[in-house]
């Protein structure tokens, strides 16, 4: 009897591991294969070795993309959430909307709420935020990904998605487009800014130099115009305040033939964006009146995002790079990551 019990427990140990592995194998073979774009960093887990920490666009979702039965503010930590995905560029998928109910059809990821909603941002993890690599090769990925001063090239992670929303990482590839952010004249003193006129604001605000580089072996196309509608500001909201762009002249930005820019392999498209210009004024959610970030949001962190313009029905532009490319975060006092 005791022997049988011991054998049962040993088989149980084996069975638990077999179940854990088998479930993922099933998803690898039967699940739908998609790509998600990320921005990696490089830590180490003492139990599992080196891994690349992955951060997806779907990890931090603006409340405007939430369509659940429960109010987003009523969601408690650990609550199950479902990120419904839609196809973006080629096979890179993006968030369509977030819900607290599993959708009956379509492709979706099952995640859990990391913490209660803050500054209009919902933080969700999907269990695919770590990519384990052989010890030492994490450094190679980091090098390729680019340092804070260089061109950063995001990973596009291959994910197999099961019918129940469970996902398994199966591999990765590199984005064809890299991004670099430099900051000119960061602001040292931000007191008494309310007394500044628009000319002073424009003069004393930081200038962001943003470069998009074709890091692939073939030519590709991007799009931008005089107002730089190809870029928009994104607030990180990590101080509890949420900002959006006050200027709506680029909403929506529809692709025009004249805006298409051809980038040969290695070629760079460079823009200088003065954060003191009205095009980059910000508006705090729930507040009245917009102003430059040096006045309104001196302690906030922002990212600049390059986004492919809308293609009207019937428009086609082969080789146009599609999707979103997120810059490192910065504040008016200097770049912070």
């Amino acid at each position, binding site marked *: 009897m005791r022997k049988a019990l011991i054998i049962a427990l*040993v088989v*149980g*140990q*084996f069975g638990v591991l077999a179940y854990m592995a088998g479930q993922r194998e099933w998803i690898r073979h039967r699940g739908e294969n998609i790509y998600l774009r990320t921005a990696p960093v490089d830590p180490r887990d003492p139990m599992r070795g080196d*891994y690349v920490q992955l951060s997806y666009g779907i990890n931090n979702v603006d409340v405007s993309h939430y369509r659940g039965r429960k109010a987003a503010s009523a969601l408690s930590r650990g609550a199950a959430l479902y990120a419904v995905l839609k196809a973006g560029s080629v096979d890179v998928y993006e968030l369509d909307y977030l819900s607290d109910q599993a959708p009956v059809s379509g492709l979706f990821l099952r995640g859990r709420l990391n913490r209660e909603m803050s500054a209009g941002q919902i933080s969700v993890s999907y269990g*695919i935020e770590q990519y384990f690599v052989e010890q030492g090769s994490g450094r190679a990925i980091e090098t390729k990904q680019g340092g804070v001063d260089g061109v950063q090239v995001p990973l596009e992670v291959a994910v197999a998605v099961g019918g129940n929303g469970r996902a398994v990482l199966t591999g990765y590839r590199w984005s064809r487009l890299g991004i670099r952010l430099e900051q000119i004249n960061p602001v040292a003193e931000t007191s008494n800014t309310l007394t500044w006129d628009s000319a002073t604001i424009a003069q004393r605000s930081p200038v962001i130099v943003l470069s998009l580089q074709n890091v692939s072996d073939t030519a590709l196309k991007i799009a931008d115009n005089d107002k730089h509608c190809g870029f928009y500001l994104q607030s990180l909201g990590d101080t509890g305040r949420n900002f959006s762009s006050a200027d709506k002249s680029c909403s929506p930005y529809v692709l025009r033939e004249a805006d298409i820019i051809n980038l040969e392999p290695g070629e760079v498209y460079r823009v200088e964006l003065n954060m003191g210009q009205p095009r980059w004024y910000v508006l705090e959610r729930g507040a009245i009146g917009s102003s430059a970030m040096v006045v309104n949001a001196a302690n906030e962190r922002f990212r600049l995002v390059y986004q492919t313009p809308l293609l009207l029905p019937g428009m086609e532009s082969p080789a146009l790079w599609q999707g979103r490319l997120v810059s490192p975060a910065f504040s008016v006092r200097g770049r912070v990551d």
Partner: protein
Amino acid sequence: MENNNPWLRAEIAQWLREGTINDEQAKVLYARYPAVVYPGRTSGGARSVGAGGNWGKVIFAALGVAVFGMGVVLLFAYNWGEMHRYLKLAVIGLSILLAHGVGMAMFRSDGPRRRVGESLHLLGTILFGAGIWLVAQIYHFDAHYPDGFLLWCLAAMSMAWALPSAAHGILAAVLLLLWSGLETFEFQQAMPQASWILLLGLLPLAWWQRSASLLTVVLVSLPLAYIVGVWTYGEQFLAPLLLLLCASYFAFARLSHSLGNPAAGSVFRSVGIVLWLPLIFIGTFIGLPSQTGMSAVPGFGLLQLLFPLLLAIGLWLWVLISAKSRPQGLEAWLESGLVLAVLMIAVLPAMLGENMEGVGRLIFNLVFLIYSLLYVYRGTEYGRGKILALGCVMISVLALARFTDLFHSLLARSSVFLILGVVLFVIGQRYAKQNTRRKLEKPRA
């Protein structure tokens, strides 16, 4: 039947020293009662190899296997890119089966092979834990990782009961603490269940197995799990709960004879005193704050807070009512009285909402002083140098602590040191005198 062999051999040595028996007679008696402390199996069921006095061997065997297992975990953590995932899974799966298979074959025999068998089972269970992280690594999943420790703990605990194995029980206790600690401090989720798993899942095993090593680990883990479990309800609850748990340990120590497990008594007493004295000393500074806010704690949490109080009261009533466990002699009464005094005059009023910061400090100072004097008395009376040293250190530490708090005049401060110096000198003289007298009375001692 109880194994009284070590006791009997100690008695023979004492008779020899006292001249009751001569060397020849002692040899005959030693031969008749050889130094066997490990009985193998008893009528009460299979015994773990950690039973009785073998706990040093269990600890070292378990440590060796744990270190080896960690080596395996780190080996897999290297994560060879060239190694196919199926091969990695096969290696870990077959290693688990191999370790348990050979362990099972060896565990059926008696003696040293049985111990090796238990160690191999332990290796298998550690490899199972490594397997949990290996599968997570292979498939890159970033789940709620404390769950991995809980799963591993449950596997170790079930093996601890099935084999039975004290080493598995120790592994389970450590993993349980890791799980509850990570949940509390990393994810802000209180896990009072950990204390109950220790109480209901591991303490009975330690008792049944008569395993001093497992019992020690469980008794040390329980207050830690309690701290982690009630941390979120309020820090003011920690000190009284720990005092109540220690008081329960002392009561168990007194009851262990009548419960048929006298060896457990010394473990309960030793672990209890190691936790109790520092708590009393901390109490000399801060007393006990009023235990307000208990009514706001939800149902299961309230049970968690009240359980040590009910346990301590129940056990001490049992101790005092039962003639077998009631203290005998002045020293035993003094020791029990100190515990009961702390409970009745400090802890209980604090639990009922009284602020015992001021009075509590006075009580804890008195109790700590009496303990130190008791140890000095025991040390000098019975010639026990370590106990005497402990008593002297306690007196000195108390004098130093109060020196900064109470005495502002340099004259008063100097007199504290003068008096302490004289007291220590007198103690030293008495110890030397007692030792000399004992040597004269028992020349072969």
